[in-house]
């Protein structure tokens, strides 16, 4: 490897590097796991980095992948070199354009981090279902298996497309290769130039649309000649494989790295061969080497160019000794005679055999599936496939990596078959997202990879929670290139960065005998930690003869000024004891790297990290290991014994990291899961939790209103209900003259609390003696843990307040409405979830929710558990996510069903009026159901109806039973973020609103694509920095509400809970009551704003006070009464926008980086606000005299 060209990067960056160097236009759209490619391109262009022709590529974010493909198509047609980056559904949205681009023989490369296409469920992880879904478009498909290959084949694809005119999809495994950090050799500008002849670029430009030499393209053709025209392109496809090979050969001459359409590796006389593509091929190759060394005649064919599939090249690639072939596909094609690669292999061999051109006897071919949704694919599984091939009757259409106890497809494998060489350091680090573990490990890879001869690999596993998420880092270092694209199974270094993990994860099962175990022992000192370990951990340390080191890392972090981030400390420990580098040298390099990483953020940050390094070396201890375990404490069960069977048997193993062991039979057949499962998870992620002061409390309900995780609840109960309460259970007399004599209790779910402290911020009551103390205060959890848990359990058993007694428009009463959305995985202090919880409190027992993909679909529906839950009667929101782009249409479908079924039920009721009873039928038909009491009465009538129907023995009675539930007023909600509502889903949303149907839309507006990491949307305000708007968003925020108001018959509200909770509740109730489409746009503070989340509600107030977020309600129902439908609920702007904006990093960072530009944009942002306020005032004055702000409370 040329040391001067060494770089440490992941697959996404490698692809983006070539794409940015060889293109002029990048049209992008965020989608996991490809977003980073677009982010790199955008950042490089913002920094002024040029392509190989010395010009900075244009990077433009589009409204969807469909839009990106369209823009690329147009740029290509007019002669630019254009590209895009995508995955999964994104690639599917590009399909129509891909047919066009290919049909027009237009050279381009789409770089795809291949990801699962959503079926029974969404998955962000990798397989080939997306790329296989475009194999028919006419694009060539070129597969990379490793990070180095990504860089190399990205360039080969670019060169080949220009020469062949066939467009390419260059793909690699999403969330494996895309995110695997590797030491690779950079392909530099000179090499790129040598691969991309200018004449081919000029030829592309000559074919472009140009009014100086006009052409007509994109025509319509008829049956007489369309077919012939379609066949006209054949020679280009026929030539393509040859061109690709010649480009590969040219590349090999330039770089020394040689590739072929099909690369065979293994024994020259192999009898058993596996054929596959993508990163799995690396694993097979590694296993083949190990098996060859053991004398086994096996080999692997790595498929690079899957389309056009060269049958000649494939047949030629196989050794003539081959007897049996297993073709592995990383996707599933239900109902097919086999997956695509398998079919191509069979066809290639079969055609050659039939034509008498097969240079060896026709081998037996079996096909199998592996690695769906990023399922691990290990040498043990490879071995199992080879073993299967050795059988006289190997199983066809098998699966490997799972236990299929339903269809019996799966191959058994021996998980103890491990081929990791001894000279590779294999280190696993178990950390928290918030403690900086992953960042430190990426840093370690850079240190070792860039500054030593060693090769390095890093891969990082995250859980799906946004608050308190756990991370596992897998690092390998060794003298040879590391071709192990799978998780470490046998580690010689295991580090636990959080003591509590010892109770939650069996991490020492990964430690090989004699390995080093490093523990952040906080809150215990190394000298005292042994006695606090669970018994299982002690036993493992002893039996595996682990060398055990500990440091009171969290204390060191606090003392060094690092807060909760133990990253530098644990990284220092790793270098101090792993022996990867000489200790002194390692420490020196850590410090150099700290300066490099943090220098730009200020000297103080550098110095505190240096302090942490020095203190660490002083405090790290080896812990003497006694001969026998002494602990009496065992690992607690992952979920309570009281949990339902499905939770205990299926969800609990997933929670404890053993989901891979679940058999096929454990899974629902169609992706349907029960709700009300988050309650069993008990994540205990916060060390500090709220404590209620019952005496001081004024029972206002603010704390429960703002709690993002529904951890604070209130009930009012008769005193006798408190009999048998656990010791110290707090309660107070309910302060209400209307219902005297009741006791008020506030329940706090301390094991589910994330510690955001929004409740304390929202509490209005201060102690008279000590104003810093409120009626709810944060306290350390451990001392009150046991009591707090008992109190919560008792609280849950207390009866809920009868909803008929509640004024749900008042904050004070809302606290008694049971939340049907609880304990989500959203960020600590999330600004979205309080709205979702309110929705569930108000309408949850009759709500159907269509949820656009995004944060809310992840914290709402990323299994194993879901926060959506049920009330005491078992009713609750029923929830589904279709896609990102179609959520409004999806939700409209719900409405159409309900409307139809209600109508159908009414028709049947009328037909059977006399049998059922005229009074009941009339009551069922005419109930307005506008109050909780009326809804309860209607439910009682339906129960009555069901009884009557049960006695009727005819088909129509059964038909009526099936749809009668919809006689209760249903509440249809479409939830999503601004990425959905303003951008990708806007067309559908607009159409759905225009239908006039009774649907409710809640847009949780964070002003960025939060879930994918903060990319700009059309909601992003001017002057805010976001990804894809690295220089500050130049354009103003789209006024979605105003656009909807223009229809005149749409209820529109703009709300901000932190600024005016009552207005928020009013808007929800009015929207739901309005018999037509309703749109609520809710301000959601977000971690992507760069704020102290504890102050999120204050920030909402400032947003409103500055006029950035005016509050209003536009209620068409008022127009019917001759009133102006528009009511402005906030006062005229009272503070400048900058007073709001510069509390947020998204604005401030621009002021810190480019002050002049920040100032220019801030002045424009102020003008935006001023103008919009004037516009609203004019709207208000249009047919009424009432001035804007007159309604302000």
């Amino acid at each position: 490897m040329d040391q001067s060209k060494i770089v440490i990067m992941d697959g996404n960056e490698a692809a983006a590097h070539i794409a940015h160097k060889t293109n002029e236009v990048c049209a992008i759209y965020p989608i996991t796991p490809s977003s980073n490619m677009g982010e790199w391109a955008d950042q490089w262009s913002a920094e002024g980095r040029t392509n190989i022709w010395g010009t900075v590529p244009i990077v433009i974010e589009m409204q969807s992948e469909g839009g990106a493909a369209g823009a690329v198509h147009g740029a290509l047609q007019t002669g630019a070199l254009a590209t895009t980056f995508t995955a999964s559904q994104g690639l599917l949205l590009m399909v129509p354009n891909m047919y066009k681009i290919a049909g027009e023989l237009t050279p381009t490369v789409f770089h795809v981090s291949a990801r699962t296409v959503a079926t029974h469920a969404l998955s962000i992880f990798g397989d080939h279902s997306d790329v296989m879904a475009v194999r028919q478009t006419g694009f060539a498909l070129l597969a990379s298996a490793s990070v180095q290959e990504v860089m190399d084949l990205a360039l080969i694809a670019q060169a080949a497309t220009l020469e062949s005119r066939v467009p390419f999809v260059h793909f690699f495994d999403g969330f494996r290769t895309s995110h695997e950090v590797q030491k690779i050799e950079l392909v530099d500008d000179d090499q790129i130039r040598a691969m991309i002849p200018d004449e081919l670029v000029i030829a592309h430009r000559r074919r472009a649309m140009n009014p100086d030499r006009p052409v007509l393209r994109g025509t319509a053709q008829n049956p007489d000649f369309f077919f012939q025209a379609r066949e006209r392109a054949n020679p280009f496809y026929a030539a393509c494989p040859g061109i690709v090979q010649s480009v590969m050969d040219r590349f090999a001459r330039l770089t020394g790295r040689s590739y072929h359409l099909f690369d065979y590796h293994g024994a020259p006389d192999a009898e058993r061969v596996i054929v596959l593509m993508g990163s799995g091929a690396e694993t097979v190759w590694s296993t083949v080497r190990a098996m060859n060394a053991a004398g086994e005649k096996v080999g692997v064919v790595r498929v690079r160019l899957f389309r056009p599939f060269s049958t000649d090249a494939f047949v030629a690639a196989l050794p003539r000794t081959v007897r049996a072939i297993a073709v592995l596909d990383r996707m599933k094609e239900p109902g097919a005679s086999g997956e695509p690669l398998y079919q191509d292999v069979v066809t290639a061999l079969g055609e050659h055999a039939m034509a008498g051109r097969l240079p060896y006897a026709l081998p037996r071919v079996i096909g199998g599936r592996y690695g769906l949704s990023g399922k691990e694919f290990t040498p043990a599984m490879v071995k199992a496939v080879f073993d299967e091939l050795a059988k006289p009757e190997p199983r066809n259409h098998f699966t490997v990596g799972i236990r299929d106890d339903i269809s019996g497809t799966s191959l058994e494998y021996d998980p103890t078959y491990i081929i990791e060489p001894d000279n590779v350091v294999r280190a696993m680090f178990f950390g928290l997202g918030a403690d900086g573990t992953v960042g430190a490990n990426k840093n370690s890879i850079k240190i070792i990879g860039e500054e030593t001869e060693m090769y390095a690999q890093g891969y990082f596993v995250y859980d799906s929670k946004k608050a308190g998420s756990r991370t596992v880092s897998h690092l390998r270092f060794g003298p040879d290139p590391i071709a192990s694209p799978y998780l470490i199974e046998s580690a010689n270094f295991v580090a636990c960065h959080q003591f509590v993990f010892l109770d939650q994860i069996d991490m020492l099962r990964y430690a090989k005998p004699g390995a080093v175990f490093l523990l952040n022992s906080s809150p215990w000192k190394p000298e005292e930690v042994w006695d606090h370990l669970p018994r299982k951990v002690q036993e493992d340390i002893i039996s595996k003869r682990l060398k055990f080191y500990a440091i009171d890392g969290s204390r060191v972090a606090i003392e060094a000024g690092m807060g909760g981030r133990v990253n530098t400390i644990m990284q220092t420990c790793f270098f101090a004891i792993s022996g990867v580098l000489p200790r002194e040298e390692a420490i020196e390099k850590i410090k150099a790297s700290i300066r490099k990483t943090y220098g730009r953020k200020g000297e103080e940050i550098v110095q505190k990290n240096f302090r942490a390094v020095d203190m660490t070396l002083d405090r790290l201890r080896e812990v003497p290991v006694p001969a026998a375990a002494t602990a009496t404490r065992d690992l607690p069960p992952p979920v309570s014994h009281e949990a339902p069977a499905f939770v205990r048997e299926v969800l609990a193993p997933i929670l404890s990291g053993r989901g891979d062991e679940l058999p096929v039979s454990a899974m629902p057949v169609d992706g349907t899961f029960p709700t009300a499962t988050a309650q069993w998870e008990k994540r205990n992620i916060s060390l500090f939790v709220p404590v209620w002061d019952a005496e001081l409390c004024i029972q206002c309900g603010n704390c429960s209103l703002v709690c993002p995780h529904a951890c604070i609840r209130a009930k009012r109960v008769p005193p006798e209900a408190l009999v048998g309460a656990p010791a110290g259970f707090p309660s107070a007399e309910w302060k209400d003259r209307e219902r005297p004599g009741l006791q008020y209790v506030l329940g706090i779910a301390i094991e589910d609390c994330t510690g955001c402290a929004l409740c304390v911020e929202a509490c209005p009551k201060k102690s008279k003696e000590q104003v810093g103390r409120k009626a709810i205060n944060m306290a350390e959890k451990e001392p009150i843990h046991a009591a707090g848990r008992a109190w919560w359990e008792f609280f849950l058993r207390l009866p809920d307040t009868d909803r008929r007694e509640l004024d749900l428009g008042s904050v004070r009463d809302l606290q008694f409405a049971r939340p049907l959305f609880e304990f989500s995985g959203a960020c600590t202090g999330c600004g979205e979830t309080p709205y979702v919880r309110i929705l569930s409190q108000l309408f949850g027992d009759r709500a159907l929710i269509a949820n656009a993909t995004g944060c809310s679909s992840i914290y709402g529906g990323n299994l194993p558990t879901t926060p959506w839950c049920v009330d005491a009667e078992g009713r609750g929101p029923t929830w589904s996510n279709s896609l990102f782009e179609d959520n409004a249409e999806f939700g409209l479908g719900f409405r159409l069903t309900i409307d139809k079924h209600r109508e159908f039920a009414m028709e049947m009721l009328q037909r059977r009026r006399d049998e059922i009873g005229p009074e009941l039928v009339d009551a069922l038909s005419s109930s307005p159901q506008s109050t909780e009491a009326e809804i309860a009465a209607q439910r009682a009538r339906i129960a009555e109806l069901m009884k009557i129907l049960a006695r009727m023995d005819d088909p129509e009675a059964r038909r009526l039973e099936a749809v009668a539930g919809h006689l209760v007023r249903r509440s249809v909600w479409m939830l999503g973020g601004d990425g959905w509502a303003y951008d990708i889903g806007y067309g559908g949303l607009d159409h759905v609103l225009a239908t006039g149907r009774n649907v409710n839309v809640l847009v949780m507006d964070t002003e960025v694509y939060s879930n994918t990491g903060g990319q700009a949307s059309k909601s992003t305000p001017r002057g805010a920095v976001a990804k894809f708007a690295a220089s500050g968003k130049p354009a103003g925020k789209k006024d979605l509400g105003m656009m909807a108001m223009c229809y005149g018959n749409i209820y529109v509200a703009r709300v901000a809970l932190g600024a005016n909770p009552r207005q928020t509740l009013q808007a929800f109730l009015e929207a739901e009551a309005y018999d037509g489409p309703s749109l609520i746009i809710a301000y959601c503070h977000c971690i992507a704003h760069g704020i102290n989340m504890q102050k999120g509600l204050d920030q909402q107030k400032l947003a409103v006070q500055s006029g950035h977020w005016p509050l209003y309600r536009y209620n068409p129902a008022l127009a019917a009464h001759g009133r102006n439908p528009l009511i402005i609920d906030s006062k005229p702007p009272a503070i400048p926008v900058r007073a709001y904006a510069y509390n947020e990093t998204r604005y401030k960072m621009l002021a810190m980086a480019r002050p002049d530009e920040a100032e220019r944009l801030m002045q424009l942002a102020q003008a935006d606000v001023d103008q919009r306020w004037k516009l609203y005032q004019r709207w208000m004055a249009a047919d009424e005299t009432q001035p804007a702000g007159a309604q302000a409370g």
Partner: protein
Amino acid sequence: MDLSTTYMGLKLRSPLVPSASPLSQRLEDLQKLEEAGAGAVVMFSIFEEQIHHDAEALDHLMSAGAESFAEALSYFPDLGAYQVGPEQYLDLVHRASQRLSIPVIGSLNGMSPEGWIGYAKRIEEAGARALELNVYYIATDPGQDGASVERMYEDVVRAVCAAVSIPVAVKIGPFFSSIAHMARRIERAGAKGLVMFNRFYQPDFDLDEMEVRSDLHLSSPTEMRLPLRWIAILHGRVGLSLAATTGVHSGLDAVKMILAGADVVQVCSALLRNGIGHLRTMQQEMEVWMADKEYESVAQMRGAMSQRAVANPAAFERANYIRILEEYKSRYTIA
């Protein structure tokens, strides 16, 4: 009429010097101050603590939530370098020094020894002609005695003076057991000027919200009595240039300070309240008074009413206090 004065060896055309305030945040305002007749300008203070806080906040808020969730491994693009350090300040000092013909005096509020010395050097390198050390220290620890506080001041002054070659003034608060002695120690530590007095931000209570509010209110003319006394006492007793600050709102106020012995008179609240043009008004008021009293130069006036120069030196001391009380009693007490 000669308004010129010498401050720490710098020849100034006027004793009126805008003190560290928001008015020095923009180059345009600095130019306006020069046009309005300022003799020099003291830049707003750079606070080491603030720099650290900004850097910490940026680092914390940009990395919050990063590397935690697979789909969002970060939440912000990398904009390269951020001006979290003193760069913006130094750049302004540099540009002001280039653009203005009057001396630009840097102002520094440090925290750590490295901060004091490091930033002082960089302010000097940026082109400041002098440096004002804004030692803003509130001793809240009952275990810390006055002597150690005084030593801390002295150490800071000595360290900074050793590190830079431009003259250094020290801005102190009035809360020393012996201000005169402290002034001498500061002088011995190497300072060339003394600025009296710093106005510490005083907390206030918001009785509606029951919260502590820390806002700055502008000075009033009555506040000038305290510096007036100490300028008068110290004039001629120490070798330091003396700068008066706090409560100087009119040209006549400035006259008083000069008569007491001030080499320069710093102005802040009056300009914030009345605008930069007020500086010219003040100068005119001074000139009218001087003409009326037939003074030809500021040098002639300086110290004319200092403690050593007046007929009754006791007026500045305790005896004076007794006399005031007596007067007060005779005026308001009903016999």
